[in-house]
């Protein structure tokens, strides 16, 4: 099939940060040096050409962008400063908006106006809700649950969480359609279930990041990821044991509290490091920051920090500061989760492990077809 060259795609990708793609002269150094590129899934050089020629369909149906973990070796060695790692990153941004059927993702990625608008909206609406619906304010000592009754906060939180999960999974389904749809694979449901182990393994470990030359990135990322996960679990546990949203907080050595301390500092360290890195621009991954990268960090860091403040004020039994900190904590959390998880950068928490899951499905499907093909060939030759 002949390729129709489409200059508009490149113009479009500029908005996602992929403008350096035209600088590539296809020496192939990047693909050779990439620790993650394989015989079957070769990148990034090939994708530089797809971008140059505007082969949008090909890119839409590709899984490779999710296999790149932006270790940046290619970028360091590109003789043309074509920033192949950043182009792969731009493709992930572009794919994120393509998977998203609501169109919100595209607005967030391509327009600063809409970005500010939605963040501001969720931020101020949350503050307004807290301001309007909070419970009685006890100032003698901290009574957080009186201020924010758990029987309201928790259910609202669950509804919110479910909504996000549905949105995200619907996008994952579109991703599945793009990547595996054209192949029309048919597999028994058991295989889908079996391979969930791949999904979970990579979700929890990000093992592929360990294949990068610089192993410290994996450690940092894992710190962050474990922090998220523990924080997420602790929020759920709060329903049962009430270690946090309560008027009678347990002592400092309560396991939930200890875990929580770990999560906070792990996340604080990793995000602070990322912010400093992006300001210093030393590592390839931090050289080029898209506005959405800053949006993510500038929501995440205050979320963690206000969470820490809530804890400190509670321990110090400072009532009003606790309530204020709590309100702001929520005001940062809502846009962070509401925008980042289904529509923007944080969605990669699903796309990356799912990409590997889909590849496994593809391999399984091929393995099942092969004996069939072999017998067909035999039949023909006979």
């Amino acid at each position, binding site marked *: *099939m*002949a*390729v*129709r060259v489409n*200059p508009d795609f490149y113009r479009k990708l500029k908005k996602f940060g992929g403008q350096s793609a035209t*600088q590539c*002269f296809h020496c192939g150094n990047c693909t050779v040096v990439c620790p993650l590129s394989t015989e079957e899934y070769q990148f990034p050089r090939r994708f530089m*050409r*797809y971008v140059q*020629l505007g082969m949008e369909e090909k890119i839409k149906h590709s899984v490779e962008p999710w296999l790149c973990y932006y270790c940046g070796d290619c970028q360091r060695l590109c003789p043309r400063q074509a920033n192949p790692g950043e182009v792969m990153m731009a493709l992930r941004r572009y794919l994120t908006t393509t998977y998203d059927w609501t169109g919100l993702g595209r607005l967030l990625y391509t327009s600063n106006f809409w970005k500010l608008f939605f963040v501001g909206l969720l931020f101020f609406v949350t503050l307004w809700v807290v301001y309007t619906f909070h419970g009685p304010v006890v100032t003698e000592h901290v009574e957080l649950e009186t201020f924010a009754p758990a029987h309201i906060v928790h259910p609202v939180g669950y509804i919110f969480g479910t909504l996000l999960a549905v949105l995200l999974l619907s996008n994952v389904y579109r991703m599945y359609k793009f990547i595996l749809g054209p192949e029309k694979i048919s597999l028994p449901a058991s295989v889908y279930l079996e391979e969930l182990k791949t999904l979970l393994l990579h979700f929890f470990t990000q093992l592929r990041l360990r294949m990068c030359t610089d192993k410290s990135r994996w450690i940092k990322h894992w710190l962050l990821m474990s922090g998220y996960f523990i924080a997420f679990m602790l929020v759920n546990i709060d329903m049962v044991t009430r270690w946090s949203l309560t008027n009678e907080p347990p002592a400092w050595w309560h396991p939930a509290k200890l875990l929580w301390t770990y999560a906070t500092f792990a996340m604080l360290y990793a995000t602070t490091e990322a912010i400093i890195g992006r300001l210093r621009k030393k590592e390839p991954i931090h050289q080029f920051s898209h506005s959405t990268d800053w949006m993510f960090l500038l929501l995440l860091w205050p979320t963690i920090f206000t969470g820490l403040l809530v804890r400190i004020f509670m321990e110090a039994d400072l009532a009003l500061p606790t309530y204020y900190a709590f309100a702001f904590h929520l005001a940062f959390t809502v846009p962070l989760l509401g925008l980042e998880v289904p529509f923007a950068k944080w969605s990669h928490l699903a796309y990356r492990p799912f990409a590997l899951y889909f590849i496994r499905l593809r391999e399984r499907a091929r393995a099942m077809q092969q004996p069939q093909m072999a017998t067909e060939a035999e039949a023909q030759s006979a």
Partner: protein
Amino acid sequence: MAKKIAVYLCSGCGLGEGLNLEALAKVATKEYKIELVKTHPALCSAEGRQLIQEDIEKEGVDGVVIAGCSPRVNTEVFDFGPNIIVERVNLREQGIWCHPPGDEDTQMLAEDQLRMGIVKAKDAQVPEPYKVEEISKTILVIGGGLAGITAALEAAKANYPVVLVEKNEELGGWAARLYKQVTLKPPYNQLEEPDIKDRIKALQEKPNVKIYTSAKVEKISGAPGLFDATISTKNGTVTERVGAIILATGAVPYDASKLEHLGFGRFPNVITTDMLEEMARQGKFVRPSDGKEAKNVAFILCAGSRDPEHLPYCSASCCVDSLRQALYLKEKDPDTAVYIFYRDLRAPGQHEYLYKRVQEEGVIFFRSDNTQIEEGSNNRLVIRAKDVLVNEEVIVEDLDLVVLATGMVPTTALGEMIVVGAEEEEEKGKKEEGPLVRPDVYFRCDLLNLEYRQGPELPTLKYGFPDSHFICFPYETRRTGIYAAGTVRAPMDMRTTIVDATGAALKAIQCLELTAQGMAVHPRSLDTSYPEFNLTQCTQCKRCTVECPFGALNEDEKANPLPNPTRCRRCATCMGACPQRAISFKNYNVNMIGNMVKAIEVPEEDEEKPRIVVFACENDAYPALDMAGMKRLQLSPWIRVIPLRCLGSMNLIWIADALAKGIDGVLLLGCKHGEDYQCHFVKGSELCNYRLSKIKETLDRLALESDRVRMVQVEIMDWHKLPEIIEDFAKRLEEVGPNPYKGF
């Protein structure tokens, strides 16, 4: 002739141990009656040199034979001024280093080499430089484009008067028609106003420069230092006496009407590089079909170039020109989609920065062969090509303009093609016999109009470019004192042209200065000998005037050769060609080499010591023999090496001399000839080969086998093959058997 010859034997470098020097000394004293024979442990030392110097001063020695190392080393040490003949006998590199020391055969070889050295010194005379009264040191530059202006300016800066002839009304040529040029300084990727105007101004300000515009060279007669150029100008015809000439007439774009397969002439919106340049100067990029602005533009590179049907060579600047033009489009409107279809993007040197910049601007490149073009609706063009990177056919549609990067044709390739066969007079009608000499090709391009017997323009090397040896001697044309510079010499870009023109100016100056001293210009720079013609012996056979590879000889009405010594390169091809032995140099002539051959002692047949004379070209074969020695390769003991200026100087009489004396075989080692020749004198080795085709008669007359003469082409890097080449020949001679003339 040297009045008093002295022989010096060096016992250093193992020569004292490896050879019997006393016996060698006896050869000189007994056989040649030389009184002064001295041995010294290191002749190249200060005392060694002093010893010789003293003999020259006190004993009146004027011929020095030094037996020791190769003449290719210690040349300055053993230079005793222009009036002393120095003959070096190579006993080290070609003696004990490639033959077993202490061996009887090695000793015999050394003795023969010494005999030949003494004979040569005896027959040599001190050359007197050919000096012309009132030689002109003016440089004529033909062509007033970038190359011509640069060459003229550089020559003028060095205080040489310049006459510049430009055919157009204005100076500047191609460079003056540019919209913008790419910066010649870092960062090498910006567009700037062409600086040709500044160069013209600088030239016009020089006091010693005479510029004729709307002018043309009608006729050039004479020789380096003495050229008379007749120039027709706006104000009538003038004659200028000049010393050297720089041809900088440039190139023209390949005729696009021959590129119909790329749509030119078929589709209105297919244009050429020149046409786009003109649009840029007008400030508007528009579709010729309807005058609407062009928003999608593609370039097709190598349009006509690197195509055996059109121009077989790379035109060297079209890649870079297209990159520059792509930048015009992007600077005018960054949203214009620009595509470049190339075969290999040749942006050498600093042009890489330009290439990168153009990529940064978003121009899309396609490496593709077989680019096809069609017209769609509304005169929009469609290009189809196989993209080697995605290994698929790519289609670019909706193109408003397609620019063909047409290649360049040198101005020397314009006009009727003339083929001059060196063997024309003799070979007519019997082409199959023997190897032919490649004919010379030139075009009636009406640029120089030389009054040379061998044609009015420069012979071309390939594809109409007037080069003579693009690797070893890039500026030299086949006419001494005439240098081609810029795109007329080879396809090149602006930066290279500037360097090229500067180099040509230096070459012209070198020619003037050496000619003034009566010395050869190239490649035997500083040589003061030149061919002398004994016309009483001449039978007007024209061999010399036909064969001189450099057109140095004219003819008078009676077909007598008319030498022009300042055109001559001292290759002695004429000497080799002359059947009458009428041509000789003071220190190199037919009798001298013949006497050397005769000085070789030929043992009786029953001694079973065959003898082989090796005539080795001084430029490659002789140094290769030295190198074989340096690497201690062992050579057959039967050889006796005689260096020649060029195999072109090989006179058949020497072969007859050798065989008549009982020498068993003659081996000729010369440079590669033919299409990709390496011969320093362009056709010398080829002409030698051609002459050998006629040796058969001589051999038949002597009733000898033609296998006794063999010619082998060696280049300097073939040194390692020499043992085999020689051994192989020796074996063949063994099969043929000893020369029956031994002992006669």
